[in-house]
């Protein structure tokens, strides 16, 4: 990382799994946000592994109330700071279950009201804290404990909800996607979000070795493959318009899927060409929508 040195505001010694993408997201986020930041956490993996009483990994003011209310708690903090004339930045952070599903009411309300805060969703694409159940962010065909692949199921039946677009439709001035596999990009986006007045949203792809089924040392590689296959697109939206997109020389989605146990049923006992083609079509649609393809000169 060449931009900003790690400042250690998210301390070591927490209980995350080795290779946890969410823990990387927390560390990178604080490296970028700095010490004058109040963190509002939802219930979930990150909250549990970082704050078992009487310990805390957070060297900035931090609050956790419930699973689904971090945006509303953040609204209150922003209002309180404004009344006191204080300048701390407020960052709400939640997993995809808290953000896409149970907390979307509070999130929508806070964005519609236009509070000056940043919401960061660490997206590990399922309810990991409770043991890998599907959420609105679980990708098509991923096997989870509530969308298991079986003799008459290929896993999760629906593609991911397009939450960044929903929040952009609230009039959010800045919406971005990022990945822990690209730390400088993620940090730059965090800085931009917290310095943009109004409600800003960052959805950071945070691969989960335990939930997705890969070895802990592969977290970054898996994150990169998501980008390189076009199944995850890193982009920025300013006032509802896409202004920046990470371009790639695309690899086939198989390269990404085959590395993860949650997609193993697509390859064993025999390769499921039909389903893999459907996932490839999702990547192709992403590529077309965002124009991510780099055409190599011959």
């Amino acid at each position, binding site marked *: 990382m060449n931009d900003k040195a790690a400042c250690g505001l998210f301390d070591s010694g927490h209980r995350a799994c080795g290779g946890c993408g969410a823990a990387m997201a927390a560390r990178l986020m604080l490296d970028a946000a700095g010490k004058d930041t109040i963190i509002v956490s939802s219930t979930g993996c990150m*909250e549990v592994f970082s704050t078992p009483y*009487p310990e805390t990994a*957070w060297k*900035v003011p931090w609050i956790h109330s419930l699973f689904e209310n971090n945006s*509303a708690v953040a609204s209150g903090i922003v209002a*309180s700071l*404004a009344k006191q004339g204080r300048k701390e930045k407020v960052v709400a952070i939640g997993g995809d279950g808290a953000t896409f599903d149970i907390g979307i009411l509070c999130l929508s309300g806070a964005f519609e009201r236009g509070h000056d805060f940043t919401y960061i969703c660490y997206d590990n694409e399922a309810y990991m804290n409770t043991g890998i159940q599907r959420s609105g962010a679980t990708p098509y065909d991923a096997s989870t404990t509530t969308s298991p692949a079986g003799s008459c199921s290929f896993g999760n039946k629906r593609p991911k909800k397009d939450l960044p677009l929903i929040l952009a439709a609230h009039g959010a001035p800045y919406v971005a996607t990022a990945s822990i596999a690209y730390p400088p990009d993620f940090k730059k986006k965090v800085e931009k979000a917290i310095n943009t007045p109004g409600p800003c949203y960052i959805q950071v792809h945070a691969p989960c070795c335990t939930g997705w089924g890969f070895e802990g040392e592969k977290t970054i590689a898996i994150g990169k493959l998501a980008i390189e296959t076009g199944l995850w697109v890193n982009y920025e939206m300013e006032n509802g318009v896409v202004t920046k997109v990470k371009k790639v020389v695309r690899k086939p989605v198989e390269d990404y899927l085959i590395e993860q146990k949650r997609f193993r049923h697509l390859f064993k006992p025999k390769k499921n060409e039909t389903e893999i083609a459907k996932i490839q079509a999702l990547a192709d649609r992403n590529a077309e929508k965002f124009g991510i393809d780099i055409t190599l000169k011959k």
Partner: protein
Amino acid sequence: MLQITEGSLAVADAVGKCRPQVIAAYPITPQTHIVEALAEMVANCTIDAEYITVESEFSALSACLGASAAGSRVYSATTSQGLALMFEVCFNCAGMRLPVVMTIANRALGAPLSIWNDQQDSISLRDSGWLQFYAEDNQEATDLHYLAYRVSEDHSVLLPSFVCFDGFILSHTYEPVDILSQEEVDRYLPRFRPFQRLDADDPISFGLFAAPDYYMEFRYEIDQAAKKALSVFPKAGREFAELFGRDYSGLVESYRMEDADCALVAMGSLCGTVKDAIDDLRDAGRKVGLLKIRTFRPFPAEEVKKALSGVSRVAVLDKNISLGSKGAVALEVKDALYGSQIPVHDYIIGLGGRDVQKKDIARVVTLAEEGKGDLYYGLREEVLK
């Protein structure tokens, strides 16, 4: 200054003078007039508060929780379904020791849907750690807000409070109310001094999870804090009385209890009707008195026991029902009197806005004297057929 005003407006005036820095609320009948009045004060800069127009009661209390943790005095108001939606946040505010004050314009809970009064809503949150104060009239409803902030914010308590006043019966009724001036309120209620707050210069973590080796001690401390309010509330009441003459130092209040043979026990606006009924009954030579419960949480068991020690029978009027059991107030009174031989009869009364009149109170006294209790008073048999 004495003013004839609507209960909700009197409460809003009092709340405004408590100088809340953040208000978050969601409209719901019969509470809405309070937060409309506060919105108007903010719009006209007569109070200096941030007003968050949240998308649900759940977010209203969540926003109050955040603002309180950040170091502001906060306020919300709700009732019935709104309070039910806040259930999760209610336990959180108490557990995180945040001195939120919230008005409850008491209303029945559905189903069936009812916008009318009983006290099922706040009673259902009795185990949440919120202190619960019940007002008999709009003067008391108004004044209890000053006391609530004093007690909640006391560093030996640090628990949130409900100020409960009966929906419509009080909230929409015009009564003369002595309105305190801002200077008078400032003399009684100091500026908010948070015990701890979210602060980048002194970072702390709020709301950690507790494993089995810590959880019970947290619950114990919250319970101890609630019980501490049994002494903090009377002190706050005495200081209020010294300044303004109205005395709320009693956790309970006795009315014509001297030599009473039958004691009625009630909370909220019903107490006014009961007092009038008692006057009539006393005129007719019946030895009847009222024990009014002002603080349902913490429950003043000692005071109740003392006040009821000389009576032959007790009739509790419960505007709630713990379905499958009894009225919540009766359960508490029975517990307080455990070991004594005094019979405690429970009457479920006035649910969902069913009118309770003086003649009903007289009838309840007769039923108690006949030893007939533990019943729903005034059921319409023709509807049940």
